[in-house]
Structure formats: C-alpha cells, structure tokens
C-alpha cells in the first residue's frame, strides 16, 4: 500500500473535468439534443390505483392519424423491465393496473405542442379493484396485491440469543419510528431520445445512471442481441438514485415509439409527470426493542424493519437488504435479531435514493439510542460512547471490524468542533426562560457500507478499460456515469496518479455501451472504491504492457511514458489494458443465513445538528451543522466536501421539509411549489471534517462517501429537537403542523418521558 503522503494528484482539489461546459452552458443534456426527423413522445397513464382495463377510447377532436400510438401489443419481446424479480413490472399495462400513473398508452407526434391535448383525450375505462396504500394496510393481508402475501422480500438476521436477554436487562426500551417517502428532485427531469433503425437496432441517449441496466432491459423488451442495442449517457443533471432504474422504462417507451414511427423519438418528462410517476424513497416503519444493562450497554436488540415497496419489486429487495444490515447502527451487541419485510402497496414503485434503505433504519436506531440514554439516565453522547463498535468487535451480521476505527475519538472531535458541551449548557439555561425560541443540539453516529452487499460485487463482475494513444493521452473506459458527484474527475485523478501523469493527460470516455465495458451501475457508493480501484489496476496493467515490451522501466517520467506509447502503438497497434473485479479473499458472505462480511469497507461518521425551534410557529430551523466522517482517503477534497454538503442538505429536507402528500396512491403535491426542498436561505452553514484511514480495497486507500451524508442529518436534527423541546418526535418529515398537533396535545414537555411509544 502506497504511503499516502506521496500522492501528487490524489488528495488535491483538481478542477472538475467537465466543468467548463457546465459553466459556459455548453454541456449538452438530453433535452438540448435533437436528431434529424425527430418526433416527440408522451405517456398516457392510469388514474386509478388498482383495477382492470375495460376499454381504451381515443376521443374526438384529435387528428389521431397524425399520431403514432403504441400499446402493450406492440412490444416485440417481453413486456417487462427485469431487475431483481423477473416478470414483475411491465413496460406498458396490458390489462391490470397496479398503481396510479402506470403507463398504458404511448403517443408520438412531430409537434410537441400537440401532445398534451392528445394525452388528455385518451379515455381509459376501468373496473376498479380494492387497493392498499400503506404498510399497515398491506401487512393486514386482507387484500393481496402482490405475490401470495404482499411480501416482496423478507430477511431474518440472527446473532446470539436475543430472547434470554430480557430478564437480565436493567432497562427494556421500545420505540417505533416512521419515515416518509422522499423525492430525489434532481433539477433535470428524466428524458431519453430513442433512435430505431432496422439495420443498427436501437440507440438510446438519455439522462441516466446505469447505461448497462438500460441495455439489459431493452434486450428483453425488443428481443434483440446485445450488439443491436446501444445506450449512451448524455450529461445528466442530478440523479441521486432516481435515475437508476426508471430510465429503462422511459427508454423502452421511446424505443417502442421510435420503432413504430420509423424515426427518432424524444420523451422528456415535465416536472409534474416526473414527480407523480417516477420512483421515491421507500417509506419505512422501524420497531426497536432493546435490553440495556445498568450502565447503558446494549444486551440485546430485537428489530423489525418494514418498508413500503410500492406496486412492483424493482430494487426493493436490495433496499431492504441495506436497511436490514444498517439497522443495528455502529454499536456492539452480542444478541441481535432483525426481521425485515418489504410490503407491496398500490403506489408507484419506490426506488433508489441516496442511502438506499440506510437513512430509514439509521433514523430508527439513532432516535432510539437517545431514548435508551434517557432510560439509562446518561447523556446521548455517553450511551454511544459505551456501545461503539471497535476493532475486533462484530456487527449484526457477524462482520468483524478490521478498520482501525476510533469512534470514541471521532465523537470527541465532533463534540469539540461543534462546541457541543458549552452549547448544551447554554441552551438548557436559555430554554428555561420565557423566550419562544427553544434551542437544542443533537448527535447521530453511523456507518455506511461501500459497494454492493456481500456477493453483489462478485455478481456484477465489473470490467474497466484504459487506452492510451500515440501521444500518451489516456482514456478511461467505464460505464460509471458522471451526474455531478465527480466520477470523471475522481477517475482521472486516480489514473493520473497511477501513471505519474497530470489530469489533463486523462479523459473519461462518454459512457456508451458500444465503447465502454460494464463497470457496474453508478450506485451504492461503489464508484470510487470499486471502480476507482479497477482504474488504478488497469493503469498499472497498462504500464506493465509497456514494460513487457521493454518500452518502460519500473519508474518512468511523463516523457518516457509518452515515448513508450508512441512506440507501442506504432509497432503493435492499439494500446489497451483491462482490469476485472477480484473479490477480496477474506470477505465471506452467506446469502442464505445473511451472515458474514456484508461490505468490504465502511465509512464512519458523527454528525451534530443545532436547531432553533420557534414555539410560536412550531417551525424548526437548523442553525448549524457539523459533519465529521472517516472515509478512507479523500481523492478530491473540494468534490468530497461538496458531496457531504449536498447530502446533508437533502437530509435536512428529509427531516423537516419534504413531504409527499398521497391521495389514493397518487402524489398530489406534484409541483415544486408544493413539494418543498430547502433554498439557500433554509440550509445552514455546514462544517465538514474528514478523517482518513486508508483502506486496502480502494485506490490510494479510498472508500465510498456518496450516500453517507444522507444517513445522519435526520436523526441528529430530531435528537436536537428533543433536546430543545423535551418531546420525542418519532416520525419524519416533521412539519410544523405535526409539531403543533403534538404540542397542542401536551403543551408541557414531559421531562420524565422515557422511551417512546409502540
């Protein structure tokens, strides 16, 4: 392992590779593009939650012969978007509708302005069926809407012996916690251009995270061989998980229209459609029953995790997996049981959003730790200190912590930079006066696993390529996409570091399935650690190829590298190296028993939130935020800081602002004026601190950090609110109306309140 102090490019704030296009307006997003002869597409969607289609009528007043019309009958291959559960989610409804906004009919026309009227003129008549809209309704199993029992997925994690621990407990603390749906709200709406030709097959350009997911889906939908489908990522304006799987659906739609129209078709969602029809974060309910000894140490945890998956499985099994594995927090406990279920409802399927199940359960455990602290009569920071994982201890799945992690030390530093103790005292003093503003400070500690769970990376079997041309310019070939988080820059830095070049000598090829190998999806905080490592390996392999022809020594200069590339390409042709994922030898995962090393590495964090609660308006302002995390090696401190700040802002939205208002299974507040995300005057100053303990798996010791910052803010904020008001709020988003209801019921904070409610 290279000594970290010796890196020249890794660890520096190299400029964003594609930044110039972004600041000049030259960057081309999908709606900035058009192809010759292109038409526009639109989607007719169901307006009931569940039922059977009786008929579809095309109303009067529209020149239907000008339109291309596609229904499920037009699908050449299979009518499904395969993800984890096959034959589940259809591309277009054939007869059974399972959620509002489900796609039924597609229309295309040369004039975009004509589409909306036409969509409105398609009348669908249904025979409605009973629907379920919540976890509670689904688990009653009175109405079965999916499979045999509404259960999309279940997990059972067992460690030690939970049941015998209760009698030894000094305190038994129970709590139930709820999180709502959350919209990713990328500022660029979803969009795709499909171009079908009989000769070449189907080419898709679009806003996306995972070109190979789309590729795989389209092979099935169009019954085409791999070389007849080509997927190209356009500049993508934000994703956060919201463009992990839904673009496959849009690509299939645009492809069907293009095939039938015999010309390219562009589908761009407007904000109302994107909000109502595409995926959201899974709502959750977590239940904790914990046995604690007289010193506040965890003896046993009995945890139930329930997610609302929406109408189809899509990514839900993996979201549940991550939620399950993170549910016990960064704590030592010999006896743990986690029973988790993902329930089907008749909502549009929920999907990936930064954190992918862990914000839900980390909310639960971190709220719960504060209740344990109360019951045990110790402070929230002390209860954590007494229970933290440490090297040699094991997680809920029995994974031994090998990171030389010092959580108590991190906690100390987080408390210091946030001036926690002094503020805690001052707020207690000030809150006792009659001022309507009550201040509070709260902590959350958590970890987030990098990469796919268990054998997931082995299954992905990622491949990365590196090419060098005659001038020594290197091109990185990956399917990993840039959507603001810094993929292009980070991979350039890694490659440059490995070859002793500068960032300007490296390009990252546009992800195009015709050109780049499948390095896996851009999800799961894996791009730096897994793909970055492969890029580093491929760079070393490239140098080895040159060494193999005696064109390069062990150590080489830039000039020597360039000369070697020139010589090699002249004599031997294309200069290209590849690296394929190798599973670490000492990672063992049992997928059946759900035990073992869930992730090769974790990032660790302590977040502190400071709030001011206005008891006149029941609104909470986050006044300061401190985010301290250990992430291995920071490849680019400017980009990494930006990731943490952005994730914290989303977490603040999750906690206090972002509510999806459901009406009969449909998002009724599907406008930006009514789905509230924080503005520049709502987000506080966020202080970011990095600690670096190089990890053997990532390039130069890096781990993942993309999702980590969304895990901690919500529980830290609600812990701070409890500190400020004395009230244990257990459900997010916590809107002023919710706080008012609770405070109007119990005007005086209950100082003796012990652990929450069941």
């Amino acid at each position, binding site marked *: 392992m290279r000594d970290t102090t010796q890196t020249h490019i890794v660890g520096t*704030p190299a*400029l*964003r590779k*594609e*930044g*110039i*296009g*972004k*600041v*000049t*307006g*030259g*960057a*081309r*997003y999908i*709606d*900035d593009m*058009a*192809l*010759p002869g292109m038409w*526009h597409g639109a989607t007719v969607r169901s307006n009931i939650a569940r039922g059977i289609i009786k008929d579809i009528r095309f109303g009067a007043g529209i020149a239907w012969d*000008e339109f291309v019309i596609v229904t499920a009958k037009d699908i050449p291959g299979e009518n499904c978007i395969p993800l984890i559960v096959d034959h589940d989610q259809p591309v277009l409804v054939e007869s059974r509708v399972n959620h509002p906004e489900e796609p039924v009919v597609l229309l295309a026309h*040369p*004039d*975009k302005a*004509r589409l909306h009227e036409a969509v409105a003129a398609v009348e669908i008549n249904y025979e409605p069926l009973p629907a379920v809209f919540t976890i509670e309704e689904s688990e009653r199993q009175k109405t079965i809407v999916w499979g045999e029992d509404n259960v999309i997925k279940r997990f059972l994690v067992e460690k030690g012996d939970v049941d015998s621990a209760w009698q030894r407990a000094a305190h038994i603390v129970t709590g139930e916690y709820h999180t709502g749906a959350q919209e*990713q709200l*990328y*500022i*660029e*709406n979803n969009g795709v251009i499909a171009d079908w030709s009989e000769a070449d097959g189907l080419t898709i350009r679009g806003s996306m995270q995972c070109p190979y997911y789309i590729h795989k889906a389209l092979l099935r939908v169009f019954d085409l061989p791999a070389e007849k489908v080509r997927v190209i990522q356009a*500049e993508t*304006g*934000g*994703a*956060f998980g919201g463009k992990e799987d839904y673009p496959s659906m849009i690509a299939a739609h645009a492809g069907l229209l293009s095939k039938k129209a015999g010309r390219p078709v562009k589908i761009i969602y*407007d*904000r109302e459609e994107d909000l109502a029809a595409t995926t959201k974060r899974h709502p959750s309910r977590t239940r904790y029953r914990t046995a604690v000894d007289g010193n506040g140490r965890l003896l046993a945890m009995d945890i139930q995790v329930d997610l609302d998956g929406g109408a189809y499985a899509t990514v839900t099994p993996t979201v549940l997996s991550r939620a399950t594995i993170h549910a016990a927090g960064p704590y030592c406990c010999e006896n743990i049981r986690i029973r988790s279920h993902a329930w089907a409802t008749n909502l549009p399927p929920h999907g990936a959003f930064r954190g992918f199940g862990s914000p839900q359960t980390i909310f639960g455990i971190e709220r719960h730790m504060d209740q344990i602290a109360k019951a045990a009569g110790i402070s929230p920071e002390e209860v954590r200190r007494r229970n933290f994982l440490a090297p040699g201890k094991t997680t809920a799945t029995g994974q031994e912590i090998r990171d030389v992690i010092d959580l108590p030390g991190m906690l100390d530093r987080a408390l210091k930079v946030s001036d926690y103790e002094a503020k805690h005292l001052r707020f207690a003093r000030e809150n006792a006066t009659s001022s309507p503003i009550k201040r509070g400070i709260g902590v959350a500690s958590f970890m987030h696993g990098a990469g796919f769970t268990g054998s997931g990376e082995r299954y992905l079997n990622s491949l990365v390529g590196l090419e060098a041309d005659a001038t020594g310019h290197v091109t990185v070939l990956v399917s990993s996409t840039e*959507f*603001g*988080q*810094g993929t292009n820059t980070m991979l350039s830095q890694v490659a440059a570091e490995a070859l002793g070049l500068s960032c300007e000598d490296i390009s990252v090829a546009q992800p195009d399935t015709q050109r780049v190998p499948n390095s896996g999806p851009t999800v799961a905080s894996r791009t730096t650690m897994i793909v970055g490592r492969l890029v580093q390996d491929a760079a070393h392999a490239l140098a080895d190829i040159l060494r193999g022809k005696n064109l390069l020594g062990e150590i080489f200069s830039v000039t020597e590298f360039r000369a070697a590339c020139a010589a090699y390409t002249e004599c031997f042709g294309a200069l290209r190296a590849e690296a394929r994922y190798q599973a670490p030898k000492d990672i063992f995962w049992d997928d059946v028993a759900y035990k073992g090393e869930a992730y090769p590495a974790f990032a660790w964090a302590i977040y502190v939130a400071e709030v001011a609660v206005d008891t006149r308006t029941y609104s909470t302002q986050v006044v300061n935020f401190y985010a301290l995390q250990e992430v291995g090696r920071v490849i680019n*401190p*400017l980009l990494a*800081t*930006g990731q943490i*700040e*952005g994730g*914290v*802002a989303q977490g603040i939205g999750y906690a206090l602002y972002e509510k999806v208002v459901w009406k009969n299974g449909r998002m009724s507040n599907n*406008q*930006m*004026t009514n789905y509230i*995300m924080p*503005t*520049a*005057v709502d*987000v506080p100053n*966020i202080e*970011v601190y990095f600690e670096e303990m190089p990890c053997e798996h990532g390039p130069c010791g890096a781990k993942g950090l993309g999702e980590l910052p969304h895990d901690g803010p919500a529980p830290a904020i609600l812990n701070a609110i409890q500190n400020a008001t004395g009230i244990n709020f257990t459900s997010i988003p916590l809107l002023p109306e919710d706080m008012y209801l609770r405070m109007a019921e119990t005007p005086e904070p209950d100082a003796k309140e012990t652990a929450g409610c069941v």
Partner: protein
Amino acid sequence: MRVMSAAKMHWPEIRFKVNGSERSVSVPPMKRLLDVLREDLELTGVKEGCGEGECGSCSVLLDGVLVNSCLVPALQASGCEVLTVEGLATNGALAHIQQKFLELGGTQCGICTPGMMLAAESLLKNNPKPDLDEIREGLAGNLCRCTGYMRIIDAVRHASQKPLLAEEQAEIDAVRR
C-alpha cells in the same frame, strides 16, 4: 437543431437583443421566452427545471434584471436585451463568476449553474459586496439539489472579491488542502 412544426403559421416578428446581437423570431406571442431561447435561438444553456417559476434554472437577465424565462411571454421581450449564460464569457475568456464557480466547486451536475450564475451576476451588480445573508437571499430563487449551496455561496463570495478574514482564508485552505 430545429424540430419541424406540423403547422406552419406566420407570426409577426419579435425583435430583441440576445447576448449583444440583434435577433428576430417569428413565434406565437405567448411562446415562453425560455422556449424561444432554447428552440428558436438554440441557446440551450437556459434550462427548464419546473416550468412554474420555482427552480430558477431558466433565469436570464432581461434588460439587466433577473427573471424566470419560463414565465415571460415572447412578446414582452420585444425590444429588450437578454443575457443568457452563453453571453457571460467574452472572446472565449470565462467571466469572473464562471471562473469562481469552476474553481470553487460551485457546479456539480451543472443544471442549475447557468441560472445560478446569472442570479449571482444580478446580485453583485446591485450589491457589489454582499454579506453572507445577502448572498443567500440573492440566490434564494435558484434551487440546487446537489451542492447544499455552500460551495456556490463561496464562489459568489470570492467573485465579489470581498477581502477575506483570516479565518475565512484558513477555512478555504483547509478544504482545498
């Protein structure tokens, strides 16, 4: 690249100046300025994020004043001067605000960046040395989902060339280290 309209109608010309050049378009008077800029003038740097005047991605300067171009009908831009992101750089050299956004991490996915920089330009024109609260207020109508606004505020602060306090400089150095 223009997409063909199914119906060719003759609309009276609307003339206005865009990024310093005289332009003239023949479009329905109620066509959104956003669509005129993107479709008729191929200035795709102006973005549509919401179509309801909430996100600010479509922000342009209209006679020097920040507006949401999704809410301006073409006819009302007649005789006006429009500045879009494409008009910020001069002779290929990035404007100061663009340079700061690039250097200081003010752009991540980039979709809010054009509107955000124009909002910053408008702010700094009216208030050359804004404090942090004034910067936040000046950007309040431009939503960013990626950055949490911190690096953007930093970029604007630097662009205002406000002399930095010693602790502010140290903070920047710490991040950039």
